[in-house]
């Protein structure tokens, strides 16, 4: 049985949600679930849905530096880098710094979907980013090669070596 993601006690509350075909799971002990307002205080079969949604949004939206949230309200998001508050963004539609795209991720996604009907950039990528991606890919292939060699899967290793050579000569 998995441990609670908040305190490490045995988890008894398990949440699964599926967004864009990606499955995400959370495990909590009863105390932490209650602290997150997921479970009502009085015995009741009803889960607190808004609190559940909020918890999932905050848990899974990549939020580097940690957005400060006030009682789990998405509209209470504030960027730790530039100080932009959600209400200010709502008021004039302008973000304050590049970091805001991570901080306000959960509220931006529906807006971007409505405006652009797309959520994944296609097109030009800066040279610096392209180089980084190529390096990462090469490192990844080299890692796979080492694993294949260790597993004495020489056929796979030969295939990987050819791909690495191809990429290195292309550079």
């Amino acid at each position: 049985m998995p441990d609670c993601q908040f305190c490490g006690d045995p988890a008894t509350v398990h949440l699964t949600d599926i967004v864009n075909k990606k499955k995400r799971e959370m495990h909590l002990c009863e105390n932490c679930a209650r602290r997150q307002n997921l479970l009502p205080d009085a015995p009741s079969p009803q889960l607190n849905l808004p609190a559940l949604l909020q918890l999932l949004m905050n848990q899974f939206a990549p939020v580097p530096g940690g957005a400060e949230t006030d009682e789990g309200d998405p509209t209470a998001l504030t960027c730790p880098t530039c100080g932009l508050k959600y209400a200010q963004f709502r008021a004039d539609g302008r973000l304050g710094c590049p970091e805001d795209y991570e901080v306000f991720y959960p509220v931006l996604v529906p807006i971007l979907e409505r405006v652009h009907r797309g959520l994944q950039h296609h097109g030009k990528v800066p040279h610096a980013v392209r180089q980084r991606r190529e390096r990462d890919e090469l490192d990844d292939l080299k890692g796979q090669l080492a694993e294949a060699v260790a597993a004495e899967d020489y056929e796979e290793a030969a295939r990987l070596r050819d791909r690495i050579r191809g990429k290195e000569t292309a550079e």
Partner: protein
Amino acid sequence: MNLDRLLPNLGEWLRGIGPESDIVVSSRVRLARNLADMPFGNRANAEQKTETETRVRNAVATASLPYALEFVDVAKLTPIDRQFLVERQLMSRELASVLDGPRGVAFNETESVSVMVNEEDHLRLQVMRSGLALDEAWTEIDRLDDALEANLAFAFHDQFGYLTACPTNVGTGMRASVMLHLPALSLTKEIEKLFRSLQKINLVVRGLYGEGSRASGDLYQISNQVTLGKSESRVLQEIREVIAQIIQYERRARQLLLKERRQAEQDRVARAIGTLGSATMITSEETMELLSTVRLGIQLHLLDDLPPTTVNQLFIHTQAAHLQKLMGTPLDGEERNAARAKYLRNRLRELGSHQR
């Protein structure tokens, strides 16, 4: 820099040449870019804006490009000079008079390339071409972007692409627009139907001076709305296809006008020239409407001793800031209307075409 030296030139967008220039005035591509480690314009303090300006100025100065970009400090310009650059389409009205603090614009000799600094985004690159030439404009701006990126780290996100202050620009940061002169479609009222259908396919129609401006002189800018999820080449292709169709509609409407009401059009054109050449007070609005009629008259060969570039010159010179520069003195609204009428009378007399 003394901006007065630009006065005799038409600027790239009014050169009046290029493919389909009987209908397409100009093509423009702009890219929004931001520095990775700076707050966007609306949350940057004066110090940060100054640093952004310094970094971009340096990058512009050292960029490896086949043309030189000269930097103008917008904060130090007079209101007339700011308006002058807006009229020449080298910078936005926002940069000219809405925003404050350190900001500027760099542009080249032919006015085909400009880089705004500290607009809504740290950088707004723009390339203009007269006529329908979106591909050429894209190639040029792509190279400019590369040259600047060599010296600047742009904010870029693996999922969202180039990050911008407004989420409506995120992704490619590209807005491609084509300025069209559509007098025949306006006259036959088909234009509203056309615009409604363009909105359905996510294209935006705007007036001459961009966002929120009305269409003066039957000039319309058509541009893409989507920047996230479609590549630059796909967006350009979509616009190209739509523009080709609109050009066809406009040509058909023009031929219909000639066929069904040639005499009435001839009369309308003659009256337009007559008013331009004899009025003693005239607004910029009326001037643009009449020049639109004259431009159509030239294209329909109802008037043939006036080159289209002259219409462009009259068009730009009768804009408020250009007019005040030509007169060498600031003028209020009434004075401008009188000065504009006088300028038009004189120019048309010189051209000898008002006698038609």
